[in-house]
C-alpha cells in the first residue's frame, strides 16, 4: 500500500496527465455534489417535511462515478491494494516482467468489463429503459459511466504497462 502525499505520480506522457486532470476534476465535482445533495435532503426532510425525491437515485449514480473514475485515479496514484511481499524480493528484471504481465492481464479484464457494461448500456438504450422514479432518468445515461470508467482505467493500465519500460518514464 502506498500512502502518497506528494501528489506526484509516475507519468508516461502529457496525454495521460491531461486525462488524469480531467478525471480528477470530474470526480471532485461529483463528490462535492454528493455531499450537498444528501445534506440538502436531510435538511429539507427534517426542517420542511419535504423530500426531494431523487437524492437516493442520484447518489447511486454518484457512487458509480466514484467507483470507476476513483479507481482510475487510485491506479495512477499507485494506491490500488497490492500484496508486494513476494514481488518485492524478486530480482528487478523479473519484477518488471511480472508488472508487464499483470498490466496486460488487467487490461484484458478491463476490456471485457468495458464491452459487457457497454452492451448493457446499449440494451437499456434500445429497450428505452428508465428509472421508475420522479426523474424518469433514461438508464443508459448513468450506465454510460461504467464503460467510460473502464475505458479510463484501461488508459492508465496502458500507462502502467509503458512505465515498465524505462524510456517512457517521466514525472508529472
Amino acid at each position, binding site marked *: 500500500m502506498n500512502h502518497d502525499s506528494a501528489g506526484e505520480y509516475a507519468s508516461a506522457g502529457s496525454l495521460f496527465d491531461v486525462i488524469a486532470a480531467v478525471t480528477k476534476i470530474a470526480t471532485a465535482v461529483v463528490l462535492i455534489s454528493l455531499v450537498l445533495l444528501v445534506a440538502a435532503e436531510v435538511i429539507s426532510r427534517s426542517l420542511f417535511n419535504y423530500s426531494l*425525491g431523487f437524492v437516493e437515485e442520484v447518489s447511486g449514480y454518484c457512487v458509480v462515478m466514484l467507483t470507476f473514475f476513483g479507481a482510475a485515479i487510485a491506479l495512477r496514484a499507485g494506491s490500488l491494494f497490492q500484496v508486494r511481499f513476494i514481488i518485492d524480493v524478486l530480482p528487478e528484471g523479473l519484477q518488471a516482467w511480472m508488472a508487464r504481465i499483470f498490466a496486460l492481464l488487467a487490461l484484458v479484464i478491463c476490456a471485457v468489463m468495458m464491452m459487457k457494461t457497454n452492451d448493457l448500456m446499449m*440494451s*437499456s438504450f434500445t*429497450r428505452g*429503459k428508465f428509472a*421508475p422514479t420522479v426523474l424518469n432518468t433514461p438508464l443508459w445515461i448513468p450506465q454510460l459511466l461504467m464503460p467510460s470508467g473502464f475505458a479510463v482505467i484501461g488508459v492508465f493500465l496502458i500507462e502502467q504497462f509503458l512505465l515498465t519500460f524505462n524510456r517512457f518514464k517521466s514525472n508529472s
Partner: protein
Amino acid sequence: DDWTGYTYSSVSTTSAVKGMNRIVDRVGKETDGELKIELHLGKTLQIASSDITQAVGDGVVDFAADFFFSGSVPIARVLNLPMLIENDDEWAKASSAMEPILQKAFAEQDVTLLGGYRYPEQTIFTTFEMKSLGDLNGHKIRVTSPEQGKFVEAFGGAPITLAGTDVPTALERGVIEGVLTASAGGAKNWHEFLPYDYRFPVNYGNSMIIANTDAFEALSDKDQDILRKIVSEEGPETTAEFIEDEKVQQQSQADAGMKITPLKDGDLAMAREKLTPFWETWAKENGPQYEEALKAVRAAIGK
C-alpha cells in the same frame, strides 16, 4: 434445458417464493427432467430487482418472478394507479383487459409473459394513529413509486423515498412515520415498528412470471405447454395463499398489539374523486398508448 431462475424476493418463507419453488419442482417432474430450473433468491445474484425484466430479456436469467418491472414495461403501471382498482373483483376484470397489452409490451422486451400473482391490497401502516385519510396530513410516508407519492401528497402527507434496509430504523427513529404495504408483505418484517394500520386499500402490487423468449421458444411445444400450464395454475394459487396469509398476518399483528382501524365510511369515494383526474393526466403525460390502456381498464371495471 438447464435454466437459471431468479426472484426479487429474498425471504424463502413468503408465499411468493413458495409458489416459485412449486413451479420449479413441478416443471422438473412434469417435463421428465427435460427442463430444469435452478431458482436463485433475491439479491443473491447481484442483479437489482428493478433490472429483472431486462436480465430476462437479455438472456442473463431465463425465468423469473418480476415485481419491479415498471421501468421496463411502464404501461403495466396502469394496474397500480392509486384508487383505480379497489377490490379483487375489479382486479380480475382489469387484469384480463390489460392482458393483451401486457403480452405485447413484454414481448417487445424479448420476454414471454407466462402469468403472475398478486399481493393483497397495500394499506397504510403508521407510527401515529390514523382514523381517516385526513390524518395523513403533515406526516412522512415512505413510497416506492411516483404514483404512490401522488397519493400521499393528495392528502397533505410528505412522500419519502428510502432504501428498504433503512426502513425499520427510519421508522424507529422517526425519519419516516409510515409505509404503504400489505400485512403479508413488508409489514411482516417491520410490524414491531408499526403500531397502527389503517385498512385503506391504496393499491395492489403484482408480480409477473416471465421467461426469456428465445429460451422459451427453444423448448419443445410439449414443454412450453407444460410450463404455461403450471404457471397458470400456480400463479393464482400463490395469490390465494397471499390472501390467506394476509388474514393470518393481520391477526398475529393485532395479537401483538397493533391497532387496526377499519376503513372509514366515505374515505374510498372521497379519495377516488380526488385521484380520478390524476389517472387521466398521468395517461396523457405518458402518451396515447397509456390513454387507451386506461380507457380499456376503466371500461372493464365500469369506472
